[in-house]
């Protein structure tokens, strides 16, 4: 009997001293099960140039004067030419322009032919992607006999932002090497622009 009394009494005192607290449910938010999946994806750096318009640039008419003081020499009124090329880069990029001088037929250079020239130099600029003052440009540098020397000009420019724009290739400042008498024949040069993703 005393054993049965002792335990309930102790429990009773405990029950009296401690306040009765209802069992609390966890906050609703803690009951929510949640999982997240992080997805990673990549857009690669990419540049693209479209087709030039026009695809070729030709000097209209004869390159040399056919009369007057400069007869036989490069005309001074050759108009600048432009070629439009659409392009884009989706990140930082470098636009580079390079050019080869217009060269005509070869000839045997000697004391009697040293007044002739087979090279026409020019300036090629890539306008539109940068301010004109910082447009990449190259001035070809060939001798009258057609030897190609190092060109001049800052031919590459960094474009820090993604860009989509028409690149306008501007050709001007045509000049025969040593202002010589142009050798008869056809002349051709090349201009190359390059868009590189950085």
């Amino acid at each position, binding site marked *: 009997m005393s054993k049965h009394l002792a335990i309930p009494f102790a429990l009773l005192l405990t029950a009296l001293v401690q306040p009765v607290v209802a069992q609390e449910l966890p906050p609703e938010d803690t009951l929510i099960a*949640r999982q997240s999946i992080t997805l990673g994806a990549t*857009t690669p750096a990419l540049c693209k140039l479209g087709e030039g318009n026009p695809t070729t640039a030709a000097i209209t008419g004869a390159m040399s004067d056919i009369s007057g003081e400069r007869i036989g020499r490069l005309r001074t009124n050759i108009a600048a030419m432009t070629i439009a090329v659409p392009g*884009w880069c989706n990140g930082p990029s470098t636009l580079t322009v390079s050019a080869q001088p217009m060269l005509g037929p070869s000839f045997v250079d000697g004391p009697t032919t040293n007044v002739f020239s087979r090279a026409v130099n020019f300036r090629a600029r890539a306008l539109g992607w940068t301010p004109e003052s910082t447009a990449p440009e190259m001035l070809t540098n060939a001798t009258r006999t057609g030897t190609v020397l190092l060109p001049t000009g800052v031919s590459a420019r960094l474009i820090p932002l993604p860009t*989509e724009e028409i690149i306008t290739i501007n050709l001007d400042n045509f000049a025969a090497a040593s202002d010589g008498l142009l050798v008869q024949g056809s002349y051709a040069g090349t201009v190359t622009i390059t868009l590189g993703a950085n």
Partner: protein
Amino acid sequence: MATPLGRHVVGPVVALLFRLLMLEITLTHRCTKHTARISRRADPVASATVHAWLMLAAMTGVCLLPSLASAQSIFPVRSSARAAGPGVGTNITVTGRVDARCKLTLTSAVQNIPVSMINDEGRLDGPAFQSAIITALNQAGLRGWCSGANNQLVLTRTPFVLGTTGTPLNGFARAALFDVSVTVATPSQAYSDTTQDGPSGSSPAGTFGPTGSGADFSFTAPSGSGGLTQPVAINTSDANSTAATASFTRLSNSRMVAGGYSSTVTLEVRPGL
């Protein structure tokens, strides 16, 4: 020397304790015979429980001890050869509650999509990218279970964003939005939700995943009707937006800025009875 306040407090407390002690003794005596019979037959755990009942009796003034027969039905008796004798008392209905619970597990929480987001024109390669997203999500190994009868699935996603903002850069898009649906199947029914409605959640879903780590969640492309069947470039300044698809501003024909993009797909299961 007791203060007046002490006399006012101590006196009633002592009187209360004395009264409770008398009540305890009276009720214990009333129930002792019955208690002893149960205690002899039941396990120690049962005996302790009987003592708890006794305490309850002291507190309530009523002997709530069950009859020996009902006690035997609750507590295992040590020997079946000891048949229950006649008893007096009141039956107690013991009830319990299993709250609704849900759990989700993943085998891999980070998934890198191995294909390029864009095509040769620098624009989102919608079909290929959508397919890669679904594959990546299913490779995460999402499984789960819910014990309630009215659970809710809430599937959300943030757009793919380059860095911390998705606003266009020099005309190029820096965010892409997509939609996915998730489904968990039971033998009799499938429950699903989609991202296109933002964090609105699904219709009530019943129990699923009764054993092991639960049932597989399966991701699929949405069927349309407001959901994107393939990713689109968007203009967003909020990389963490989980809003509905219709609330985003789409960029038509925009190319994507180069770089690494990330998105988060989150599934919540909210348990409900």
